[in-house]
């Protein structure tokens, strides 16, 4: 029996069109727009101004508090201006436009392909380097990694879980990274283990990636304390709480931090970024992005500089298909629909999915027939039908007492509803309101 989480979950069609396509380097764009807020927490503060010359890897915006990260230039060239542009949220965000000239990297970055296996850093140095390199959770949550590595007082990490689940349909960036950079990932994991002072790390990979499971299991034998666990394919297994449950059997208490179970979760992409940051002195300024969709001429996995406009990816994938109705940054279950193809790739962009017009359309909303499918698929043990009604009627005290804040917004309820009811839309609204109420009460 393969391990998995116990309650809820769905299995949408996987559509991993690009799992066999090696990672290609995307040609440099003419201009990049690098937002200063690509992470959860305070935006970074720009350090450059119009006309400044920058190199790839150069710090251009500085972390402004503990929960924040540094932003580095992903290209060499001239700062065009510091301005606002809409990111994947649809809201204008501050960022730095850089006109690309050549491709000059900071000298201290080791650009060779040689694997650097050994390291001799203490945990504080590793955490500091991770913080300086601007590393955030690359699975999509973009929580600053250094914050995760320092447990709150009185708590101790026992195990590092590495998320290689990639449960979102279509996306293959983590899968390709595991196949092409296994040693780098494993060294990155060792660095993270050292940073957290834990002896054990487990890589969780869903069973639809047997090649990655096999490769990493074999390679992991050379690295002390690291093992691979194959997981049954079920969405949302890549959710932090679900992954911890699947691998360790422990449940994060409601409102609690994952560390309460002794586990800290990091993505395989993050582990790779940690390797590059520490062993190669390379800050986080590029990442693997899957560009895919049923009508895309050349669905691919690209290594992309942060700040590259989505339009460049589209062009490299054979242009925008005629019938495109929706462009999603991320996967189809939790990704964000983009209003424009000018939106830049950021640290959290794991993929770009193009949907056809007919796929993009939502069906007519019908009456709830109380089939209880939403209840049975909810991985948090909630009652989405009830939360939707309570949110709709604005009965927020009962939203709270029915644990609306536990919702991880995985979308399994809306996905599965036979009456096409927009359950998650209403639950998000209710969550927002209940969050406000809780904050004002705690003041």
């Amino acid at each position, binding site marked *: 029996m393969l391990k998995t989480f116990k*309650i809820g979950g*769905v299995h*949408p*069609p996987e559509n991993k069109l690009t799992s066999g396509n090696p990672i290609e380097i995307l040609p440099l764009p003419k201009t990049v727009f690098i937002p200063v807020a690509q992470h959860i927490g305070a935006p970074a503060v720009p350090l450059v101004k119009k006309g400044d010359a920058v190199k790839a890897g150069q710090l251009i915006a500085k972390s402004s508090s503990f929960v924040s990260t540094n932003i580095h230039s992903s290209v060499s060239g001239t700062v065009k201006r510091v301005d606002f542009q809409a990111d994947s949220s*649809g809201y204008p965000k501050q960022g730095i436009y850089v006109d690309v000239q050549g491709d000059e990297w900071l000298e201290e970055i080791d650009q060779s392909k040689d694997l650097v296996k050994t390291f001799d850093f203490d945990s504080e140095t590793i955490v500091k380097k991770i913080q300086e390199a601007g590393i955030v959770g690359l699975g999509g949550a973009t929580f600053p990694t250094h914050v995760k590595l320092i447990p709150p007082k009185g708590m101790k990490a026992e195990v590092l879980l590495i998320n290689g689940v990639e449960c979102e*349909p279509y996306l293959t960036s983590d899968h390709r990274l595991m196949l092409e950079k296994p040693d780098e990932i494993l060294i990155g994991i060792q660095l993270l283990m050292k940073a957290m002072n834990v002896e054990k790390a487990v890589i969780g990979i869903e069973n639809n990636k047997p090649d990655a499971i096999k490769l990493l299991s074999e390679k992991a034998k050379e690295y002390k304390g690291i093992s691979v666990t194959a997981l049954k394919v079920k969405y949302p297994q890549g959710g932090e*709480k679900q992954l911890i*449950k699947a691998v360790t059997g422990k*449940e994060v*208490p*409601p409102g*609690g931090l994952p560390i309460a179970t002794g586990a800290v979760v990091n993505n395989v992409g993050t582990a790779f970024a940690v390797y590059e940051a520490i062993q190669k002195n390379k800050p986080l300024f590029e990442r693997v992005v899957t560009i895919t969709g049923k009508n895309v001429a050349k669905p691919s996995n690209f290594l992309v500089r942060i700040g590259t406009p989505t339009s460049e990816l589209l062009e490299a994938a054979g242009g*925008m298909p005629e019938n*495109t*109705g*929706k462009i*999603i940054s*991320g996967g*189809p*279950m*939790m990704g964000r*629909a*983009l*209003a*424009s*193809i000018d939106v830049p790739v950021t640290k959290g962009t794991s993929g770009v*999915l193009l*949907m056809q017009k007919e*796929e*993009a*359309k*939502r*069906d007519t909303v*019908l*009456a*709830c*027939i*109380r*089939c*209880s*499918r939403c*209840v049975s698929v*909810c*991985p*948090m*043990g*909630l*009652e989405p*039908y009830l939360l939707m009604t309570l949110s709709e009627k604005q009965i927020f005290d009962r939203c709270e007492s029915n*644990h609306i804040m*536990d919702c991880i*917004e995985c*979308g399994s309820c*809306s*996905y*599965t509803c*036979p*009456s*096409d009811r927009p359950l*998650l839309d209403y639950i998000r609204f209710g969550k927002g309101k209940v969050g406000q109420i809780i904050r004002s009460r705690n003041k």
Partner: protein
Amino acid sequence: MSNLFTVSPSPHVHSAETTSKIMYRVVYAMIPALLWSVFVFGLDALRVTLIAIVACLAFEYVIQKYLMKIKPMITDGSALITGILLAFNVPANLPWWIIIIGALAAVGIGKLSFGGLGSNIFNPALVGRVFLLISFPVQMTSWPVLSEGEVDGLTTATPLGIIKEGLTSGTPVSQIAQDLPSSTDMLLGQMSGSLGEISALLLILGGVYMLIKKVITWHIPVSVIVTVAAIAALFWLIDPERYVNPIYHILTGGLMLGAIYMATDMVTSPMTPKGQLIFGAGIGIITISIRMFGAYPEGISFAILIMNAFTPLINNYVKPKRFGGN
């Protein structure tokens, strides 16, 4: 920008499941039992079923369009199910005008007066049936005699009716049993009863189909049947001359039809598996109580309707297990 894109919150994909697909699967599940009733009761069974279906669809259309002034939803399959279930719950020789009154009670009172599909508290078909049972007790309890697959105009009692009458008059079970069908006949459906309830085997077959297609879960049917069987067995073991073998309670009357097709109605049953087990057990207790100690020979319709009323209460107290909670 050359193109306008749809911008909506996630999720951006949807399962292929739809409400009407679920409804039509219930319809398919009932077809074997319907065919059997045509075989046993002749074309009368088809006549009753068609009248019930047409009447339910017509009332749904007219009430939605002219009284509620909303877009009629007669193609969603729910009124079709109500029609078939109503027919399944009445004798095959019921006059056409009574069927139409039953359809009006089912769709008009049972369903649309509450706001339509999803808002009704009680199972619409059962509202119709109970309305008819109380209003037309004679016609609703005169079952056609089976004779070589033909209905000859005479009427008879159902096995449960025979048992009830016998026990009330003080006849011992061993004597009553001579008038009852054999176990095989009960399983296959060679006995008298309401149009769609007679063949336990074919009803179970349809139930298995619905289980495989995930229209229903096992919780309600199993808890209803197990509860009825357990209580009936207990009394039978205490005094087999005053209480019949539990096999009669399981295979005759509307137990299979009720447990598999009507108690499982999503709209009127609880949302969690645990709630469904409580709901099913409640139906079982009330059914067997009416059958053994009540005035009516059969009690499943009343039992389901009573437990329907408890469904909101069960939903309020029986919650799914919260992730990370106790």
